[in-house]
């Protein structure tokens, strides 16, 4: 027995496994933190329309970003699709995205939904708003996010965990608008008013509101849409807060072209296509979100919730202030 030789031989045997498939020329490689079932229909539609093949891998935002960074100039990825502006902002900070100047994207996507620097672009809007139990709350009782911190809501509020980025973004935007001190008071008020420990997702939270464990909460609208589609009998309704001042907090899912993209031109074409009419429908409607392109009408169900004023502060602020928001929520005891 020659162990060293065996070891080398078995390493050699593994070698064919090592080589990644060779990439064709008219192909785009996507890393996506948006779920497969929400993006694959878009990829299929684009391939059908243009013949360009799209390779993709899905995953969690943090690890995908770490992977992009570690791969550096060797990365196969051309496009990074992710949910939440905070993640896109972080990707830009880490220097893995490329600056893009595109008139199409400029025209299609409103300024507050894209990076001022042109490194990433919002493709759908996710509104985080108030949901309430229609048997226990009148819309007149509701006004603002801040209002939910008031004493009249004691023991009546349900919230999702502060570990979810949606809440981190919401609080970050409140810091941007109201300042850190005021925001902390409000968040402390929310925590005092909680009827039960924070839930780990929006659907659970809404089911608790419907079941009467609490009366109101804060959720993303597409969770509401999905729940009401499957259980239309639930006594739940949406409320658009802060309509007399800054408007409803919105976040995005979006995309940016990677700095070391091998198919940068093809990826840009695809990104522009994503901001256009047909793709915007597919992108937003698949998950009952709002199209980022204001020319495109939302899904009829989404439209039925009524028009609302959205906060037009640039969503990049959510990234800039996210760490401060997390620290603030820790101080306030928001778990």
């Amino acid at each position, binding site marked *: 027995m020659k*162990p060293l030789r065996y070891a080398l031989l078995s390493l050699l045997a593994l070698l064919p496994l090592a080589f990644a498939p060779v990439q064709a020329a008219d192909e785009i490689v996507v890393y996506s933190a948006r779920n497969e079932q929400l993006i694959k229909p878009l990829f299929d539609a684009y391939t059908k329309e243009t013949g360009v093949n799209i390779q993709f891998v899905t995953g*969690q*935002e943090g*690890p995908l970003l*770490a*992977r992009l960074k570690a791969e550096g100039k*060797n990365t196969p990825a051309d496009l990074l699709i992710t949910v939440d502006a905070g993640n896109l902002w972080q990707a830009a900070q880490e220097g893995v995205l490329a600056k893009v100047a595109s008139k199409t994207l400029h025209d299609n996507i409103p300024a507050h939904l894209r990076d001022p620097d042109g490194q990433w672009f919002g493709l759908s809007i996710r509104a985080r708003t108030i949901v309430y139990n229609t048997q226990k709350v009148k819309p007149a009782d509701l006004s603002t996010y801040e209002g939910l911190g008031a004493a009249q809501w004691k023991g009546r509020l349900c919230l999702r965990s502060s570990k979810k980025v949606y809440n981190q973004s919401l609080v970050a935007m409140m810091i941007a608008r109201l300042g850190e001190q005021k925001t902390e008071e409000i968040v402390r008020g929310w925590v005092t008013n909680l009827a039960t420990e924070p839930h780990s997702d929006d659907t659970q939270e809404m*089911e608790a509101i419907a079941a009467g464990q609490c009366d109101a909460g804060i959720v993303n609208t597409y969770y509401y849409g999905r729940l009401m589609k499957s259980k239309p009998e639930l006594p739940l309704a949406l409320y658009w807060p802060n309509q007399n001042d800054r408007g409803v907090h919105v976040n995005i899912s979006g995309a940016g072209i990677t700095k070391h993209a091998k198919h940068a031109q093809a990826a840009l074409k695809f990104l522009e296509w994503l901001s256009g009419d047909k793709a915007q429908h597919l992108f937003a409607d698949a998950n009952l979100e709002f199209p980022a392109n204001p020319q495109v009408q939302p899904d009829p169900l989404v439209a039925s919730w009524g028009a609302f004023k959205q906060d037009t502060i640039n969503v990049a602020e959510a990234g800039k202030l996210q760490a401060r928001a997390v620290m603030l929520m820790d101080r306030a005891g928001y778990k």
Partner: protein
Amino acid sequence: MSAHPGTGAMAPGRLGARARRMNSGWHIVTLLIAALVALPILVPFLSWLHPEGEVWRHLAHTVLGELVRNTLVLTAGVGVGVLVLGAGLAWLTAMCEFPGRRIFEWALMLPLAVPTYVLAFVAIGLLDFSGPLQTTLRTMFGADLRLPAIRSTGGIIIVMVLALYPYVYMLARAAFLSQGRTLLECGRMLGLTPWQAFLRVALPTARPALAAGVALALMETLADFGAVYIFNYDTFTTAIYKAWFGLFSIDAAAQLSTLLLLFVAFAFYLEHHFRGAARFHSGGKLAHERRFRLTGARAWGATAAAGVVLSAAFLVPLAQLLVWAADTALSGLDARYIEFTLHTLALGVLAALITVSAALLLSAARRGSRGNLSNALIRLATLGYALPGTVLAVGIMLVLTWLDRGINSFSETWLGTPAGLALASSLTALLFAYLVRFLAVAHGPVESGLERITPSITQAARSLGAKQREILWRIYLPMLRPGLLSAGLLVFVEVMKELPATLLLRPFGWDTLAVRIFEMTSNGEWQRAALPALALIVVGLIPVLLLMRPSRTKS
């Protein structure tokens, strides 16, 4: 039974020159493997080069105290729970006779196929305020009825105990079976009651197996993020993810992970230290002996206990998943599920082969050497199971991309063309990740198998003129077979359930059933995850049933 200081079975001094040369060759290979596996586990330590004072100050001032307390409570609760449940049920099915024993002895392994996060989301779906149970009770007893909350410390401990007790059950059962009854009867003859015999003879003798089982359960508890996230129960792992995803500090996350590792290493050291040098070898063959026949209330009590555990950990969750799948998700069933299943199987089998081989090599090498370096490296290499999966996955990726850069500069210089990311986005990367993560899982059963091969056996063989190769093929492998099989099947089940490394390192198109569950749950669609979760459990049943076969024919 003999208790003696652990001397190596193949101590170099006793071998001939040829054997020694060969031994040193194996030794180098083994060291290389151990070093390679240890590398990603060491990567997080590099983060200490970048101090993250602000994040640390913040955590220390706000949540860290509570997180550490929560983690200690959780590990203590889960540790005691899996020990009592695992050892108790193993004792019942291995040594006693009661109605339904022949079914329970294998059925109690089934929860191993249910991922902890699946059990957690089923528990919440079923038992939370808005779930069917409480809703029904409220319609019966009035809307003001309040039950103890499932989303609580007690709730998460129960869920984790139910998900993790099979590790202890499996190893304890094998240990009890191999002890046989003679040992106990010696105790009885010396005047012990049956309970005393169990507590003072059977349990201490099974200690290595129990410790290995509890260690696996606790490492999984410490590394868990899925179940604690679903319960919104903040542990030390929560701080790691908070630092990384919330505060955008991957360095602080890595630093926190190293503390977790040091804690586990210290716990191992303590266990090892207090176990001392004692080794237990059961002299007899695996006995076909009479079991203690339980009668009357005791017999039915045993049946009820096993039945309750099996229902709570497996049957009820399975039923709930079936209901959800029928309700919502059958529409999602398509041809791709064949692909997901095949990928899951292929990865599981390959990883099991590689990991068990490595575990065997390392264990054998450790017995053969007294070197402190190899000992330390091997200890380190089996710590990967205690790191949160995502942190470990990134560590592995960093090592691989670093190797890739080396390969690239080599191929650019010598071949004039870059190799791209030959390693980091390949199947090899993923299999390597499984090796790093699950070496600990394979290590336990292999090690306890090796401990059964006493030095006297090898000495006897050698004195009869057996060559090293003959000793390996005719003594080691047959005696190790059950241990290797258990190790392989455990790794298979673990790989099947694994998520973070699979997500990050899988090549394009290599989606598995666990990835499918992630796609649904990360979007909050728990009930649509029922279908892939069911498929996962069904695939997982195959090895669990295989795993139980040898011990069933034995008893």
